[in-house]
């Protein structure tokens, strides 16, 4: 083998070897999410998933990117369907067709990660901070609700950085779905809106009709 070829081969091997030590991670969330088990309230809602939200890629630091867009859209679509009996998904507030409905626009405020090298703990952690802009169909603001979600890996043993961040992000997204279903109707301003719109009365009537 000529000397130049040997040198080239050695350089290539060295580059491959060093790139294996790289600490950057590009994560795409592909995991499917389960359907929620929940009886929706007789409320109409329009969910505004903007193009930015649907294709959102978080960059918690210069070496890490997490493609959350499609996963968070799927997860939140599923969770909202468990909250509202009648629901439509639109890309902009101008496309809302429902009257007398809630118009909810979710957005991501911040994504943070921590790795064992940052914290000296044996886990990877992901925080996703959502904000839900809740308005009536007339455009009156009901509330702007801050919704944090958290996920961590059980440990970091035998996990690559990419796989570990993906696992923690999936747990954080599931946590977002859980928080939404658990707490949405506990938001005082949303509860007041339900009372004003007599939604709770309608729900009681439905329950009576269902009972034999």
């Amino acid at each position: 083998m000529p000397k130049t070829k040997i040198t080239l081969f050695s350089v290539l091997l060295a580059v491959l070897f060093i790139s294996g030590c790289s600490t950057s991670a590009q994560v795409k969330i592909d995991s499917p999410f389960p359907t929620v088990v929940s009886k929706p309230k007789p409320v109409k809602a329009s969910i505004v998933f903007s193009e930015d939200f649907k294709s959102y890629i978080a960059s918690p630091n210069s070496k890490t990117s997490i493609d959350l867009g499609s996963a968070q859209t799927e997860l939140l679509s599923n969770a909202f369907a468990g909250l509202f009996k009648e629901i439509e998904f639109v890309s902009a507030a101008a496309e809302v067709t429902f009257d007398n409905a809630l118009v909810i626009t979710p957005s991501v405020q911040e994504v943070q990660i921590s790795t064992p090298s940052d914290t000296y703990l044996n886990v990877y952690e992901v925080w996703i901070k959502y904000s839900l802009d809740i308005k009536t169909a007339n455009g009156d603001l009901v509330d702007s609700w801050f919704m944090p979600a958290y996920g961590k890996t059980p440990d970091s043993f035998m996990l690559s950085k990419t796989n570990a961040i993906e696992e923690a992000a999936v747990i954080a997204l599931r946590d977002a779905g859980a928080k939404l279903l658990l707490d949405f109707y506990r938001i005082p301003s949303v509860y007041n809106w339900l009372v004003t719109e007599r939604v709770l009365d309608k729900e009681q009537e439905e329950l009576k009709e269902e009972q034999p």
Partner: protein
Amino acid sequence: MNKLFALCAATLLAGCGATTTIDEYRPNNQVMDINSQQSVVILGRRDAGHYDTDREFIDCVANKMKGADIGVFPEQQFVDAIYPWFEPRTAPKGLKRLRRLMEDAAIKEQIERNGIRYLVWLDGSTETHDKGGSISCAIGPGGGGCFGFAQWDKSSIYEAIVWDLTNLTEKGRLRVDSSGTSYLLGIVAPIPLLTPVKNDACASLGTQLKQFFTVDQPR
């Protein structure tokens, strides 16, 4: 000479045994019936900040239960089937909350459809502490080797709580406490003498848990 070797080996290996204690509490001595259509789900508590009950341990206990012909519903499948009510944030910590959950017809239906009769909560972890000694390895043109001695203690503490999902009552509690010391000898080659603390805790807990249930045999 052979006897001396055997004695030394036996003494060395005996030092690697784990000490395991099991405490059991049952409100009464009634056995828990379970038929072939019903199953048990074993869930790990994951709401503590500093540890997660590891899936490996849960799988290990589940395998011990399966060995006794008790149907065990997979943990992740259960958590997905009833999403989001058994996530770390939402999982019921007590019977009061479980009863409220089961008032939801959709949740009750999912549990009944999957034939889940009993729920076993597992909570605990295995920790390493009291590390001592040192071992170093070197390699050179003439060969390599390890020299030294290291030791560490491990302890596994797990608690199992059994809930009946039909009567919505607690059927019993088990607590396993297992500890032992492992050694690593460096005599040219590294010789590990590991104490299977977690396996011992799993085997003891699984065996004891099996005795809680009586499988109804089809006639």
